[in-house]
């Protein structure tokens, strides 16, 4: 039950990292859309 994840030490930190990753992906996709889409 309490087995830690292989990276970042705790599950809470790993979940936060995944949420931040999603935010970064959306920002990057927004920049991509702005750069190329008309």
């Amino acid at each position: 039950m309490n087995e830690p994840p292989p990276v970042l030490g705790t599950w809470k930190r790993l979940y936060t990292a995944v949420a931040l990753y999603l935010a970064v992906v959306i920002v990057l996709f927004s920049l991509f859309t702005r750069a190329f889409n008309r």
Partner: protein
Amino acid sequence: MRPLDWAVLAASLAFIIAYGLWKSRRTSTTSDYLLAGRQMPWYAMALSIMATQASAITFISTTGQAYMDGMRFVQFYFGLPLAMILISAFVVPAFHGSGVYTAYEYLEQRFDAKTRALVSVIFLIQRGLAVGVALYAPAIVLAVIFGWPEEWTTVIMGVLTVFYTAAGGVKAVTWTDFQQMLIMMAGLCTALIMAVWMLPSDVSFTGALTVAGAAGRLNAVVTSFDWNDRYNVWNGLLGGMFLALAYFGCDQSQVQRYLTGRSIAQSRLSLLFNAVAKIPMQFLILLTGAVVFVFYTFEKPPLLFHARELEAAQKHAGYAQVSERFDRGFELRRTGARDLLAGKDSGGFTRGQRAIDEARRDAARLTGETVNDTNYVFLTFVTTYLPAGVVGLIMAAIFAAAMSTISAEINSLATVSVIDIYRRFLARDAPDRHYLSASRWFTLFWGIYAVATARLGRGLGSLIEAVNQLGSLFYGSMLGVFVVAFLFKRVGGTAAFAGMLVGQAVIFAAAKFTSISFLWFNVIGCLAVVAVALAWPRPSR
């Protein structure tokens, strides 16, 4: 398909099935057969989850969707990482801790037998209806592209899938999914590289993006909100999160993938891998479609990608005039694209695109149809322009996508039939080998059922829409019951049962009387179940 393509396709399928059977050779108990003895590593589960979700029609039509409508479909997946976090945090420990075979078995531990039975039956109806369509969808596309008889494709795909699923159970399903996902990724990357490679020598990758963007094909993020438009960032985040919560948290075809994990940590990692990998994968599939659009800006596409509709249109008197307008539009668009690459916008590109769209619409009208050849764009490109061997690889990827989805569905349908219905209500105290045998027979039954009902997909119009809408009719209320189970500990079985019935009625009413996008049915149904369950009077002590 040339001999080399057939060889690549046959070798890929043979290797995948042999590998799955070899990995599942030590299956001697019901737990082995249905849950792989709970010994699966995270990477096998992770790719199995991805492969189950990526059906053949998704693979074929997503590229076509980017060609026709742009990349905004990627937003559909924005809610998925959030759902994966919630499922990892709350659902995985609950399922693992209770030692269940199915998600619905957990509902009896938490509520009562009638709630478990109701949700199990709803799952069997919903998945039972979808499995035939999942089998039929690629068959109909392959019939148009290659002229293969739909019945034969359906039977061959169905028999191969049932063979390894019935023989090896979930171990065979997971390890074949693992290989199938690798083949899908290889096929996808090859298709993207080939599409870029086939562009005219003076069109760079950045130039291709400029042309695709000018046609509105790179709209990966749309920030304006519209209830009726499923593809914007807000619908993707919220509606997509609820859909992913329902699919990965309550649908046994997905839950069974991560119940096979050797620990909570392994199951969580498999889901979080998906949270990270799914969006880039969809982005690459859509980008392939956008690059194919640019390819067809410089290389003349067929007036209609659906060969049979094109043949029907060609028989009409008005076809020559429509075709001429299409040719002029293509030349105008090509010249306009060259202008764009040279840094000047003459307006020709947009005018040419408009003329092409109008000509396509008019050509479809000649046959009395609306333009709906999204599913045929990618395979037309692949079979017309890609070299021998590569076509075989991409066909192997499409077969892999179909078989991985169908095997997981048959496997989960058999598991729910045996564990939640047969063992619970019909044969309670039989020895383990009896349930193992029953599991194989139910797998065989659902496989035959899938092949037999595949043709029902014929009258459903857009198949991917049909499958998604069908799922959304049931997912909201199922999700609602699980939300109540996990978050509201004081709510009892009768309240959850009543909430489920009301939630289901609310979704049917929303589908019948409103034009709200089906993504929102999951939210509406879930909230209705929770509201009724909380408002239901508690039994006095």
